[in-house]
């Protein structure tokens, strides 16, 4: 188990290097720092001095990979790649366009992101599993048909509609909750309840339909038939046998998403003015703040890989038949 985990962790490193190289190519080689300077300075006819000044201020005046002018190891370290891209591996993300330290900003914004994303995630999972169980229990009836139809309808509505419509109705017309904002302490729940509710409604359709197929897959398996043949009532068959077995693929599937909760939700956070990582990303995209976008790409993929490793662990924990001893 430990050897397997170690192997997975080692496998993550080349992937992160790949992500790093890819973002470096996108941000520094497709367009040179000169192009970025021209874009940021915003004028058609900027002077060469202004561009040079912009590049020197940000450390973009170095060569890309190989600094022939420097001495010794500095030939490698005094380059844009090492200074701007490779240093992300040690948690140094540099500074945003407005001069703030990105790493500190990120650690401050993870909390608010999680305050929205974690309850949304847990509630959606719970509601969707319950509804899927209900639909599977009443499978091939009118309830099942219309339940699935409503799920498809919910899936087909743009997430923007849920947010804009929900905000208008609950916050503006009925004035039940504040329109946007984020507070400290216990009073904060008033700001959280609407974004969480909207997140659950917009996600529950797809999840329910998806989980329902897991339940239906179990329904016709041999062990279920045995349980019925023993004379167990259908409810007991469902809650004791089918629910437990169908939860395996559901739970191992969602484990991969847990680390990504830190990234927050782009749309919800920007609509509700929550100072989390999602709104940070959106602001960076709108302001064309490339260092921030680069950092978020790196963090996002690191969290994704963490999710993959957690999934593997959860497989072994949930299902004793699976063992990653090494012969797999």
């Amino acid at each position: 188990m430990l050897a397997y985990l170690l192997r997975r962790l080692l496998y993550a490193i080349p992937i992160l290097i790949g992500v790093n190289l890819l973002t470096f190519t996108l941000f520094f080689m497709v367009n040179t720092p000169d192009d970025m300077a021209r874009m940021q300075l915003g004028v058609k006819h900027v002077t060469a001095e202004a561009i040079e000044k912009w590049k020197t201020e940000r450390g973009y005046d170095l060569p890309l990979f190989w600094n022939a002018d420097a001495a010794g190891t500095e030939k490698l370290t005094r380059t844009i790649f090492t200074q701007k891209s490779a240093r992300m591996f040690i948690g140094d993300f540099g500074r945003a366009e407005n001069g703030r330290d990105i790493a500190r900003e990120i650690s401050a914004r993870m909390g608010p992101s999680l305050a929205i994303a974690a309850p949304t995630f847990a509630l959606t999972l719970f509601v969707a599993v319950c509804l899927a169980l209900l639909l599977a229990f009443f499978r091939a009836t009118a309830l099942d048909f219309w339940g699935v139809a409503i799920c498809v309808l919910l899936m087909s509505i743009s997430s923007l509609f849920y947010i804009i419509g929900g905000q208008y109705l609950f916050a503006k017309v009925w004035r039940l909750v504040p329109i946007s904002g984020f507070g400290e302490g216990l009073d904060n729940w008033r700001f959280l309840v609407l974004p969480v509710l909207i997140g659950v409604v917009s996600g529950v359709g797809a999840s329910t339909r998806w989980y329902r197929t897991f339940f239906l897959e179990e329904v016709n398996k041999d062990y279920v038939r045995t349980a019925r043949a023993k004379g167990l009532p259908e409810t007991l068959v469902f809650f004791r046998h089918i629910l437990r077995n169908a939860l395996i693929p559901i739970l191992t599937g969602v484990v991969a998403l847990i680390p990504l909760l830190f990234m927050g939700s782009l749309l919800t956070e920007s609509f509700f003015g929550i100072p989390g990582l999602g709104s940070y990303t959106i602001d960076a995209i709108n302001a064309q703040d490339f260092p921030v976008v680069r950092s978020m790409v790196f963090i996002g993929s690191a969290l994704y890989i963490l999710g993959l490793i957690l999934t593997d662990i959860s497989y072994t924990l949930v299902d004793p038949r699976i063992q990653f001893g090494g012969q797999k």
Partner: protein
Amino acid sequence: MNFQPVMNFQPVLLWSDLLLWLLTFVAIGLGVYSAHVEHLQRAWARLSRNAVATGTASILCVFLLIGLLDSLHYRPRLESNPAAGAAVRTAHYAVEVRSLLDALLSSLREHHEKTYSAPLAIRLYVMETEETQTGATRDYPRLRHGGAHLADESGHLRDIFSSILQGIALAALLFFLLKMALARYRVPAGGVPANGSGFAWRGVLYALGAFLFLALPIAFLAADYHVFGTDKVGQDVLYQALKSIRTALAIGLVTTLVMLPLAIFLGIVAGYFRGWADDLIQYVYTVLNSIPGVLLIAAAVLMMQVFIDKHSGWFSTAAERADLRLVALCFILGVTSWTGLARLLRGETLKLRELDYIQAARAFGVSSGRIITRHLLPNLMHLVIIALAMDFSALVLTEAVLSYIGIGVDPAMMSFGSMINNARMELSREPAVWWSLATAFTFMLVLVLCANLFADALRNALSSMDDAAFEHEADMSGDP
């Protein structure tokens, strides 16, 4: 009329037009081809007996027709000054690029109001100061075009009702004719279908009927009113929504053109040859997959913007620039989204290559290329078709989100996303302006819902051939 040696318009072929038409012909060709592939025939037959499938397919065809009409572009000829006789020989064309749909909807396009007006209104939504002899009065002024034919405002409601009634009457007539035309295909209750095919004409009939009963009253009303109101600059919202259809279709369809070759080629190569090719391809798609989708798209689009700004001299018209941006966006979406299908095809190829018929082909000395094209590809087709259908609706929804974030289509190009983005603050006005948002969301809902229902029916029809294949999608464990 004197003889004119030049045409009244100059056809313009935009890149996305070319790709959309190409896709339409390829799709028709593939449909004809797959109707002759034996193991797909049963699936098509099953699909065609499903009334939901035929119904949603007819609605999607209506959307496609609007999109294709909007993909025939031209530049109208400018009226040359008769005094300048020499100018007759060298015709001048407008900078503005129009489409056939624009020509058909010219009254909608040209009927600009000053600013917001509510659906079917005859007066502006905001007060204006009017100068009269007795002094200045504040009032809601009459619209320039909406209900301008009414001399007396008291006839407003009656006029609306009569237009709706006319539309419904015509729709009923057409529906009846359609029903008569389809009657000979009707399946008698419990009996064998007359022509043996069992095609669910019922779905087509009801879907087109619903479309007629909705569209015709709107068409009659649109002649005199702004049926869905006007936006901030006074443009008709119905016109914007109709123009947005093409953008949504382009995003949903052209993207697949980029994604398909990548996914099919790399997925099959990885599964068939295994070894270092498999390792390399798996590495590439794990890297791409590990970057959260929106961020990767954002990074690529930001870089594309810098690139387009740098080469702004390449484009002679604004439409060309917007169009290239659309194609580039499709390209970016395609490059970032092939990984799921490639992984699916790889897994399926791994399974298929061990089957007896492939082993037999290899024993006979059939070349790898021939095995892939003749024996593997036809048996993977159903996975490809299902994945395409399911991706389409997701892509349409993605476009709206991307345009809202500001990394979608060009702001000058009409799309559901830019309609929503432009109207984002309107609900917080007092009183709220809701019609732009409502129209964009409704059109999007109909398109996406039809696509989802059709994809579902398609999956049911095709995947009973192979149920297990799609379980791989749920398997998020990565590849050990």
